[in-house]
């Protein structure tokens, strides 16, 4: 007998507005229906009413967490159309800001995943060490989010030499703490039991759905826009792509954690190689044509397409965030999970929309519980597993 468990229009973990209808038989999920569109703001409709430079700020506000990715992809698209050469120093600065953003985004995800699993200490610790990172971004760019750094032809602000010791100090701190917490999280047997072999997204499904970012790299699909279509400084510095074959949630968590360490290395390389110079090319007009820009955001490939008719405003602007492809793949990933696991699976693609709040679990038209109920369900399961592993009191776990 099928029971429908609607999760939404607000996801309890990520606080994202999506409506998932899980079709459940007994304890197992057998199907999924996804409704989105609760945050459709009509960016593609607004873009042609603003000038080229103003659109950079419009797209920056598509997302708060990956707020640098959208302007980055957009300016790459315009530079592709107008064939603008970006100065070398600007490419390094773009890479540095983008990688700092990646670390902060992955920390955010790991923290929330920890909270959902019942590991609230993990949550607090990861977010506590996210603060020096945000302070660093504030001193470089002027704000903790919405950095206003990208400009067609370069960047708006320079990284001053006197800031570099502060950057290096923060990077050392981040590297030390990330390594510490990564080992702590990955070594924990209960976390492994919760995440391993759960939310299986087979490689063939990953390719068929066109998933991107850590969701793909955790399923053995070795794609990364930074390696395959390198722009900015990604082609000039040595770094490794993190790919795991296991296709489960644990693989995705490993990809995100290890990518943070890789990002720290990349920023160090950029700082080493950066030479003094111009930070922006002179741009006079955008000739008629079309341009495509795509870069690797923390969640996957962000794709921008613009078309110009030679005037000072775009004619068509298409934005595709990575969650568009990743969330659709939940249909394949969530089959066979329990309800307690399903909510974590739905969050493992790190969906990025914006924030609203309402969730209900209904059975036979009776409301059983709300979002907190689902979180408690998941935390209870962790407790059960912990007892089974003989590890009822882990220092990482506090049930707030």
């Amino acid at each position, binding site marked *: 007998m099928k029971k429908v468990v609607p999760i939404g229009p607000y996801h309890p973990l990520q606080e994202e507005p999506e409506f998932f209808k899980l079709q459940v038989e007994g304890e197992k999920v057998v199907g999924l229906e996804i409704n989105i*569109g609760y945050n459709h703001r009509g960016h593609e409709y607004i873009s042609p009413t603003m000038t080229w430079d103003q659109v950079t700020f419009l797209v920056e506000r598509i997302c708060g967490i990956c707020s640098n990715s959208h302007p980055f992809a957009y300016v790459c698209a315009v530079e592709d159309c107008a064939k603008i050469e970006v100065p070398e120093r600007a490419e390094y600065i773009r890479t540095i800001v983008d990688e700092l953003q990646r670390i902060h985004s992955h920390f955010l995800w790991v923290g929330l995943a920890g909270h959902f699993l019942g590991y609230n200490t993990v949550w607090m610790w990861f977010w506590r060490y996210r603060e020096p990172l945000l302070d660093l971004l504030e001193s470089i760019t002027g704000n903790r989010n919405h950095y206003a750094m990208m400009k067609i032809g370069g960047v708006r602000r320079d990284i001053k030499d006197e800031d570099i010791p502060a950057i290096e100090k923060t990077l050392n701190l981040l590297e030390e703490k990330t390594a510490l917490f990564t080992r702590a999280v990955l070594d924990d047997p209960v976390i492994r039991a919760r995440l391993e072999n759960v939310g299986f997204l087979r*490689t063939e499904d990953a390719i068929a759905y066109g998933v991107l970012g850590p969701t793909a790299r955790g399923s053995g699909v070795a794609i990364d826009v930074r390696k395959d279509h390198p722009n900015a400084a990604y082609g000039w510095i040595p770094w490794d792509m993190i790919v795991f074959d296991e296709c489960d949630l644990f693989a995705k968590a490993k990809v995100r954690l290890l990518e943070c360490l890789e990002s720290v290395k990349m920023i160090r390389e950029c700082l080493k190689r950066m030479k003094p110079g111009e930070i922006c090319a002179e741009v006079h007009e955008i000739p008629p044509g079309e341009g*495509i820009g795509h870069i690797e955001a923390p969640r996957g490939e962000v794709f921008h397409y613009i078309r110009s008719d030679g005037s000072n405003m775009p004619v068509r602007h298409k934005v595709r965030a990575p969650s568009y492809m990743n969330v659709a793949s939940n249909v394949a990933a969530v089959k066979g999970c329990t309800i307690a696991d399903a909510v974590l699976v739905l969050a493992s693609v790190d969906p990025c929309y914006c924030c609203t709040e309402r969730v209900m679990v209904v059975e036979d038209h009776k409301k059983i519980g709300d979002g907190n109920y689902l979180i408690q369900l998941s935390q209870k399961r962790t407790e059960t597993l912990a007892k089974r592993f003989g590890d009822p009191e882990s220092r990482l776990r506090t049930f707030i």
Partner: protein
Amino acid sequence: MSGVSNRSFEREEFEKRFPEAKITERSSRRVYVDVDRAQISEVAAFLFKEHGIRFAIATGTDTRNGFEILYHFAHDARGVMYSVRIFVPKEDPKVISLGSWLPAARWIEREMHELLGIDFEGHPNLKPLLTAEDWPRDRHPLRRGE
């Protein structure tokens, strides 16, 4: 490295299979291919099924010459983006759906259907994706003059 195979193909192979296609190389990384709308499913199958080239997204635009749909395929092994362009006449806004065999194209075809009014024949679930439930179905926001 398991999973994806991103086999390269040569331009000659493509030109032999689709002689009417017009290929424009805007840069070393951007290739635009103009095909007739009747051929889009075969071109997409050539790129995705035979050569494993990832489908990135599709872009629909309302232009003077009809609805222009660009299907963007990202060739990750070579670092090239292939954008396949078709024109769909406004009086007959129909094209065969890729979503019938390519899950990655399902959502974007639903979006183009509701925002531009293009009918994708054979799509398994052409329900609106982004607009509100009570949005009038004959109004298409991305059409010019609406």
